[in-house]
């Protein structure tokens, strides 16, 4: 049978129409996915649930305001880790086993321990990953190539505090109070080394549990050491309120300082006037800072969804930042025709011009972390943290 050119063309078009178009349409309709493994229960449920709310809002923002990711919708997958490495690992395996590598393009986890446990799998799968942890150890592209820290490390945060101390009072006496945990110990070697370089003597080091029933012995020993500044690390406002209250009662006049997890305003509610003057590092925007475009955008989005307009915690702001920044990285990867895990990894390394509407100073990663922060000082009368410095570049 002789086939004419017209018949051949008709057959070809028909075949494309029958098989190609639906496949193309399916590919376009297929979502891209971000998995968030969050501590929705357990001792860090307060942070996990705030982050969940933020990731949901960020997903909506990427889809509705940013127009999706290269014509595809961003979809959020959520798993509870209970702040437990075993449960978190199981959740990770569940997500990885269920989702296709073409769709699941980013994973967000919940702690240093979990991140370290997952690191070999993350490297093997080539999936870009971040977490709630700002561990200095994780920001190591050589050792953990898939892990990105969306903020400064705890060592960076301490660097900011030490620089401030050095500038305000050269030779000031420093005391360290940290929890007996991986989180608490993380930046301590760096602090000791850096303080020595800056000529800031460390006159005391107190190691405590994560939660205190009495801070008197700690404060009495600090009082003997007569520090000018007390650097705290490794608590989530479970110990700081008691420390500052007890310090006030025993007449210890040092300035207390803390890092990211001490920067939530609940400190002032829990410690009252004793919290006044507490200095903390914080690298996103407070939700009461209405001059930040991201804050306006968040409240507009939430208002449109009928959500409450109240205060949003630092944990919310941090997770919203990660959500929109990952969405932006995906959009850039899609624009470059590389909406894949390696494509997003590449995009993350080139987002120098992006500041997530003022939620971060810059997305210029240095050693897989964003070494920028600001210092804030607690104003107990107003119940808020007020900016003490502009952005500090720490690397």
């Amino acid at each position, binding site marked *: 049978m002789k086939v004419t050119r017209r018949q051949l063309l008709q057959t070809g078009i028909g075949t494309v129409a029958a098989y190609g178009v639906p496949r193309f349409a399916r590919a376009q309709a297929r979502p891209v996915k971000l998995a968030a493994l969050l501590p929705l229960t357990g001792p860090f449920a*307060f942070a996990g649930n705030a982050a969940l709310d933020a990731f949901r809002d960020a997903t909506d923002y990427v889809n509705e305001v940013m127009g999706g990711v290269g014509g595809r919708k961003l979809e959020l997958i959520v798993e509870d880790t209970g702040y437990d490495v075993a449960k978190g690992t199981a959740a990770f395996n569940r997500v990885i086993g269920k989702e296709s590598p073409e769709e699941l393009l980013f994973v967000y986890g919940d702690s240093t321990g979990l991140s370290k446990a997952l690191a070999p799998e993350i490297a093997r799968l080539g999936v870009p990953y971040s977490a709630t942890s700002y561990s200095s150890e994780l920001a190591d592209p050589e050792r953990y190539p898939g892990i990105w820290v969306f903020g400064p490390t705890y060592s960076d945060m301490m660097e900011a505090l030490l620089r401030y101390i050095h500038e305000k009072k050269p030779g000031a006496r420093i005391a360290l109070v940290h929890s007996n945990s991986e989180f608490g110990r993380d930046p301590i070697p760096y602090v000791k080394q850096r303080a020595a370089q800056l000529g800031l003597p460390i006159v005391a080091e107190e*190691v405590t549990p994560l*939660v205190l*029933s009495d801070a008197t*012995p700690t404060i*009495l020993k600090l009082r003997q050491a007569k520090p000018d500044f007390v650097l705290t690390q490794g608590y989530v406002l479970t110990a700081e309120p008691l420390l500052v209250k007890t310090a006030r009662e025993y007449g210890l006049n040092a300035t207390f300082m803390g890092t990211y997890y001490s920067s939530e305003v*609940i400190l002032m*509610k829990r410690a009252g006037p004793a919290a006044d003057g507490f200095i903390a590092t914080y690298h996103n925007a407070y939700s009461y800072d209405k001059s930040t475009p991201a804050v306006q955008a968040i409240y507009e989005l939430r208002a449109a969804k009928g959500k409450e307009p109240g205060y949003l915690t630092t944990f919310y702001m941090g997770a919203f930042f990660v959500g929109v920044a990952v969405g932006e990285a995906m959009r850039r990867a899609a624009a470059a025709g590389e909406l894949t895990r390696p494509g997003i990894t590449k995009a993350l390394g080139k987002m120098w011009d992006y500041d997530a509407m003022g939620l971060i100073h810059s997305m210029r990663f240095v050693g897989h972390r964003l070494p920028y922060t600001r210092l804030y000082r607690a104003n107990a009368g107003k119940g808020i943290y007020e900016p003490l410095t502009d952005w500090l570049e720490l690397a």
Partner: protein
Amino acid sequence: MTFFWQLLLTGVATGALYALMSMGFVLVYRATSVVNFAIGEFLLVGGYVTFTLAHFLPLPLAMLGALPVAFLVGVGVERAFVRPLIGRSVVAVIMATIGLALTLDGAAQLVWGPDQKYLSGSLPPVLLTFGELILPPRAFWSLAISLPVALGLIYFLQKSRWGVLVRAVSESEVAALAMGIPAPRIVTAVWGLSAALAAVGGALLAGLSGVGPHLVQLGLMVFPVTILGGLESVGGALAAGLIVGVAEALSKGYLEAYLPGISETVPFIIVLIVVLVRPYGLFGRRDIERV
């Protein structure tokens, strides 16, 4: 020397709080032989109930108001979790209390939400000084509340009719029933009282650093205290609480510089040493049933 006395003073205050937290645990064990692994969650619920009431009432009244609520929670727990297991193996009851702990953790998050909370208001700021020694308000209130409650409870158990009934039930529930003692009602009341005592402890702890799941972690101190004092000795819980509180404070003051983190383990080291010599604790009975 002031340093030592200051540590001793605040150690006693902390120890009194530990004793208060532990007494409810001991009461339940004494009356029912149940090791209540949900004691930390009882503290948590007490803290949260006080937190809720403190929105409407001054803190001292909120703490008082939390007592009947916590009592009812204790009664409910006994009815729902413990009574159905009467006659079952001790392991089953222990597993039930572990399940209860998880249930209460989840329920607290559902009812009060996961966000960080603080206790509004405060107890009157009594600051006592003795020469160079200072007794800050928290330590004062720990002592002022915990010691009278603990001593009152010991007196109540020794001298009152209800105390005698509780002791009778704890000696032998079957014999008590045979004597016409309403043992089930006594056991229910003991669970309620245990929850109420924990609520006071929870409220005092919540005043330190806010309300939240970290209270459960502080509640774990009940275990070394009760094992040290003897699982069924209310007086032992008081003595052991004071010993642990003082040991913790002194080790924090004198050993921490050489052995960072030692003060966290000191209570357990003491327990280990004492249990090696007296397996039934400092004030426990020799015929103690171990689980």
